[in-house]
């Protein structure tokens, strides 16, 4: 009798273990399903539109006139690239140097203050950044160079600030991951602290720095709400650092609210182009990352 009860209990326990195991497995597969759904829904809605408009007309068309059914997103692609490049020019040097400071030059007392500051910088919502850009950066540029102040320059400065935490965190982590023996070896050879850091540690962490930059590019190219407020948003090919610019992301947000028919589909196709950019960046990131793991 006891044996039977024990057997039954054991059996029930086994069932429970197995059921839960599959529930865990199922939960783990949710992210696969999510990515698959995102791909399917975006591509199924966007790709036919691209072919309806004509891939060349769509990607290389220089005019975006929804009212006359002309959908060329070349200005927006250029806009996204310009703004991202500008953000990189500002964000990479400051970010990487700050990371070096935090990893090797920062006294503990200051570190306790700088680290949360960078976390906070990462936590500020992009719409609040946009507000900051609008009330601070745009008027300054207006005063210095005239015009309405909105454009590539304002957008680049703002985005440069926004990608700092991404670049700093990844770079700092990769610097900290370099074996201490590298640094000690360099010191033993008579190099100063500064020379050891810059000529030994930084080169050793270069793939980490590279992945920081790639992640930064990904963040910059996908940023939307902050850009809308400072970029000016006219859908024309920008002709200078102060000219208004519209990015792929702002194109979607600005017009999706009232678009219908082919116009709406063209906006979804814009998101497809953006998504492909992001996938390319992800791919580059995983290549860099797999190289890093091989090296260690």
């Amino acid at each position, binding site marked *: 009798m006891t044996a039977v009860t024990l057997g039954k209990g054991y059996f029930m326990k086994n069932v429970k*273990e197995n059921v*839960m195991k599959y529930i*865990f*497995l*199922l*939960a*783990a*597969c*949710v*992210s*696969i399903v*999510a990515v698959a*759904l*995102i791909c399917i*829904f*975006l591509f199924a809605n966007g790709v036919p539109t691209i072919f309806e408009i004509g891939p060349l007309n769509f990607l290389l068309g220089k005019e975006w006139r929804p009212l006359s059914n002309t959908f060329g997103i070349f200005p927006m692609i250029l806009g996204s690239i310009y703004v991202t490049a500008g953000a990189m020019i500002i964000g990479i040097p*400051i970010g990487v*140097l*700050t990371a070096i*400071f935090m990893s090797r*030059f920062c006294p503990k007392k200051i570190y306790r203050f*700088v680290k*949360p*500051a*960078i*976390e*906070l*910088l990462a*936590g*500020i*919502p*992009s*719409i*609040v950044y946009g*507000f*900051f850009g609008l*009330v*601070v950066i745009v008027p300054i540029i207006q005063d210095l160079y005239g015009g309405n102040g909105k454009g590539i320059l304002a957008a680049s400065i703002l985005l440069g*600030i926004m990608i700092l935490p991404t670049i700093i965190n990844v770079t700092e982590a990769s610097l900290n991951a370099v074996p201490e023996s590298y640094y000690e070896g360099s010191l033993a050879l008579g190099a*100063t602290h*500064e*020379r050891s850091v*810059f000529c030994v540690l930084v080169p050793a962490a270069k793939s980490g720095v590279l992945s920081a930059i790639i992640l930064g590019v*990904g963040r910059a*190219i*996908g940023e*939307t*709400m902050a850009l809308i*407020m400072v970029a000016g948003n006219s859908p024309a090919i920008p002709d200078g650092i102060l000219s208004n610019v519209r990015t792929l*992301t702002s194109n979607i*947000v600005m017009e*999706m609210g009232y678009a219908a028919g082919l116009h709406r589909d063209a*906006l*979804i196709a814009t*998101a497809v182009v*953006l998504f492909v950019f*992001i996938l390319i*960046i*992800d791919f580059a990131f*995983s290549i860099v990352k797999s190289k890093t793991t091989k090296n260690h």
Partner: protein
Amino acid sequence: MEKLKIDLKYHKFSLLIRLIVCIAAVLTVGALIAVVVYILAKGIPNINPAMFEWKYTSENASVVPALINTLIMVVVTLIIAVPIGIFSAIYLAEYAKRGNKLVKVIRLMAETLSGIPSIVFGLFGYLFFVIACKFDYSLLAGALTLAIMVLPTIMTTTEEALTSIPDSYREGSFGLGAGKLRTVFKVILPSAIPGILAGVILSVGRIVGETAALIFTAGSVAAVPENLLGSGRTLAVHMYVLFNEGLSMEQAYGTAVILLILVLIINLLSNLVARCLVKKNNQ
């Protein structure tokens, strides 16, 4: 004194490096201070009692419905995302065998998810939840979209917390005769709570600040809906809409301050949790 002179002469490079590294750090921290100070300075004078009236009208542009909607959005999103995130992490950390192909795929997908821009999530949510699932513009559609968005954060932080728990805990539990399930729920998860909490707080911050993914999923109705299938704007969307209309800029400035303060509180919380984590690890 003599020594210092020599140092300077031979180590111009060192001095220069120190200088530029410090300048970079000052610029970074300066940027943060500038953002915080300017928003508070421009925003606080614009906060008035009318902003906190119970109902939204176009005159008072009250933030109260948006605040309540934000709260609902955070709760619903977490209810969806936290169990899935924790369960996935349990699978990855406790059940999957090393070198499992599926694990690689899951990691890759989580990484992909975390790299997708919020506007792409927004469009997907619009196409899938709003149109295909017929949820219409609703808090539910918004919460589901955001749940996918924060899933990788919760998953990776939980997994890190789980893998950092020493194997002796597991062995001890098994040794006492507990099964795998009991070990996971009674021994491993409780010890991983601070780490999991850190991920959850991070996600709350993202939900509160999110705009692009919500405009086309949760919509922008300025009231608290009767149920989850109604449309409602969160605080960040509220601020965007106010800016876009251009009618109540003062309230938009005020809303920026409220958002910033919320984010400050969330960050403070996460720092507290992190401190608990460090204390625990040191014990």
